């Protein structure tokens, strides 16, 4: 006979205080294998109406419900939970409350990066690599383990400021524009310059030990970081990695 309940721990954060609560999830069918989001929704309904968490489409498309499940970033809507699992906010962005993090420091660091003239002829095909990158749903799972993003100060939630250092997402945006057939060659150096200003050289130093994982399976190291390093540092980078 299967258990009727699942005991899940949820880490709350309010006014700089952290509290671990235990929620007894009531399974709705005997064989239910709930997702983390199901637990949060039921906890809010049954016990904690002030529980703060994000969600959107419930189908792995919108990228807003990312949380840590046992300290690993997962999309809450498609992460199955087991007895004793711990749900908490991702650690790579500042927590506003409970499981909600402030995300816009990344948006702000990219302001104007794409303000470049486009060629007139729109009817050019983008290649497969380009479309591989637009599969990104901006879930920010890739921030985990990124040595560049780790250099940012992520404690302040009171200011709407841009992060100084980049992350796999911001570099993905740059790389996508770099391989866009409509970006004129004369503009590409600006994009590479932007990548450098966001701390691209940190990847260069730590390339071999770099472990970053994409939430939807994009090859970030091979299709974002490596080509950017090649474009920015060319032969030097090739030599280093022989």
């Amino acid at each position, binding site marked *: 006979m299967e258990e009727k309940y699942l005991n899940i721990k949820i880490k709350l954060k309010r006014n700089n205080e952290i509290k671990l609560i235990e929620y007894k999830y009531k399974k709705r069918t005997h064989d239910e294998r709930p997702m983390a989001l199901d637990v949060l929704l039921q906890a*809010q309904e049954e016990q904690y109406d002030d529980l703060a968490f994000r969600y959107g489409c*419930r*189908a792995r498309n919108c990228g807003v419900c990312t949380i840590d499940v046992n300290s690993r970033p997962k999309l809450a809507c498609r992460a199955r939970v087991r007895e004793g699992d711990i749900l908490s906010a991702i650690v790579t962005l500042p927590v506003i409350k409970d499981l909600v993090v402030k995300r816009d420091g990344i948006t702000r660091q990219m302001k*104007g990066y794409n303000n470049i003239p486009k060629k007139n002829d*729109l*009817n050019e095909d983008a290649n497969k690599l380009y479309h591989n990158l*637009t599969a990104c749903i901006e879930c920010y799972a890739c921030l985990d383990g990124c040595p560049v993003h780790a250099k940012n100060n992520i404690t302040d939630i009171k200011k709407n400021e841009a992060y100084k250092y980049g992350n796999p997402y911001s570099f993905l945006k740059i790389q996508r524009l770099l391989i866009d057939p409509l970006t004129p060659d004369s503009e590409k150096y600006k994009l590479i310059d932007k990548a450098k200003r966001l701390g691209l050289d940190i990847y260069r130093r730590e390339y071999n030990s770099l472990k970053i994982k994409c939430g939807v399976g994009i090859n970030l190291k091979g299709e974002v970081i490596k080509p950017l390093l090649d474009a920015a540092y060319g032969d030097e980078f090739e030599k280093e990695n022989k």
Partner: protein
Amino acid sequence: MNSDNIEYLDCDVIVVGSGGTGSQAVQAAAEEGLKVIVISKDPMSSSDTKICEGVITVRESGDNTDTEEALSENIKLAGADLPDKKITVAFANDSKDAYDRLRVNGLRPSINKEKNKPKTLAIAMGGHNKSRSVGHKNSGVAFGHTNWDTIIKYKNVEYFEDCWFLEVVKEETEGNKGKDIKVLGGIVYDAARGKVLFINAPSVVIASGGLSSLYFPKTDTMRGNTGDSYALGIKAGADLLDMEQIQFLPFCLASPPSYEGLLAGEPSTASFLGVLRDKNNKVILDSVYLRTRAECSEAIMRAVEDGRGSPNGGAFLDMTKNISAPKSGKYFMKYLKSALPSAYNNARQALGKEAGKAEIPWEVRPSAHYSMGGIRVDEYTRVIHSAENQYEPIFIKGLFAAGQAMGGLFGANRLGSTSLTELAVFGYRAGKSAAKNANQSFKNKNYDIFHEHYFNFKNLFNKKGKLKPYKLKLDLQKKCWDNIGPARTEKKLKKMLTYLDKIEKDLNNVNVPEEMIWNQQFIDLIELKNMITTAKAVAIASLKREKSVGGHVRLDKKTSSLFSKPYSTLVKINKNNTFEAYKLLRQRTPLKRIINYKISEKFRFMKAKILRILPESISDKIIENKYKNILGTDQITIKPGSLDGAPGDKVNQI
């Protein structure tokens, strides 16, 4: 609340919403060099546009004989003559340029090298009288990137997320024809920083989406669709049009909970031999593939009403006959998997292996998908409020609405792939109109009126009542499904209005803490209030719609005849501060077209009937050939919400 928490800002244009419509409005206003502030409650561009199927209507994309007139008329007929002709004309005129603008912003379709233009879907999308639907790799996510890139492109655009737009601040004076209303800006709750923003601006664009969360979890859309657009609009004095017209997709998942509401299939998924059954295994609808979405929803909801529904309040979509047919059976699986891949995956994951092979029936239930009604605007998206006479429009100076927030474009039904065009066309028009108005306006420097407006919200913090806003929200969602859902009766609608009066009183007894940073109860309360306002508009508009038409099904009334005079419903707040509904007569399509339609409809059902009464060996052979024809093309795609998905919905196609 301490006044230190108020931040005073000013700009030329406020855009509420950062999805497809919002980003287009931002571009249009920012290009004019104006200062724009974007307010978004969800993370930037995480909207319905991002999670949609990514197919967009582009005039002339597939067929050189396509014209502005053909497209405009197509939209109007599909909407059962409820759409405003000036708006459908604007849609048709701008659709090509609007799409190119998205491409300049980074949207990359596959290119047909021979014709030197974007590739259209292999099969012309159902309902459209020309091939003009362009699909995209990564579906809506590709549009999400484009929208994101558009908003951050301009230096003169400021962006605030985790911010709830509370109210349009306006000034009212007595005019010649009635009240003159002028926009002064807006009040915003910034949950991330625990502040209230007073934003002085002569123009406000409402681009904050739809209402499907009224029915949560019976919806396949984003959580944030709490009717904010309509509530903001009507409270600012605007008329709302056709609010009863909500598109429900009939075949969505009813279980397990994590998948509840998501799309499983369309009427066409049922294929030639699929039927709907109740819990007693009795067929409640045959020839499912030829039925309209509304007919399917109606059959399911009638069974539920009679206590013959499935365990989770739906019915069973039985496709087993398709698979067991000796000759045609082997083609069916290929058809099922390739016709609507994302929906098929949802169903297989949620319902298991056997269901994935269509060996057992699928439990299905309708889900809310799109609101065709909305804020009354003209073709430049200028928001309208009518005085005494609803035929005499007066513009609210400085207020604009576009995208799912607006009404008057789709009326009673929406063709597939048109909503992405709607946002690109009217989002941009809204930005331009807002910019023009801002350039012609004097800037208000006074914040006194903001304090007056804010007074009501200030009192919502620190309430010591007993009720939880979140619980009330859940209760409202359940009541919306039961009473103003896919199948309605006069009795239910009146019951809903009584309930809404009660829940409004309950708002006085809620518990909301004082804290300013991410006050979840305050957020839930604000969204609840918007949902109540919107639900009221839906209920009142539904009562004014005397017969079933388009997305609106009345169990106690007949289907509207094509010969009856078409009208839009109009809801507004009257002098006594109560909601009132009116009729707005629309122009009827010429009789000849209607008769042509009637004949084609009869013919369609006759063919289906013949297929059913023929001996199995013969019908199997006919079906086999039909599959061969469909699957013979290099690719078949049926998009959710399209008329391909429900050939029966071609009710108004002539």
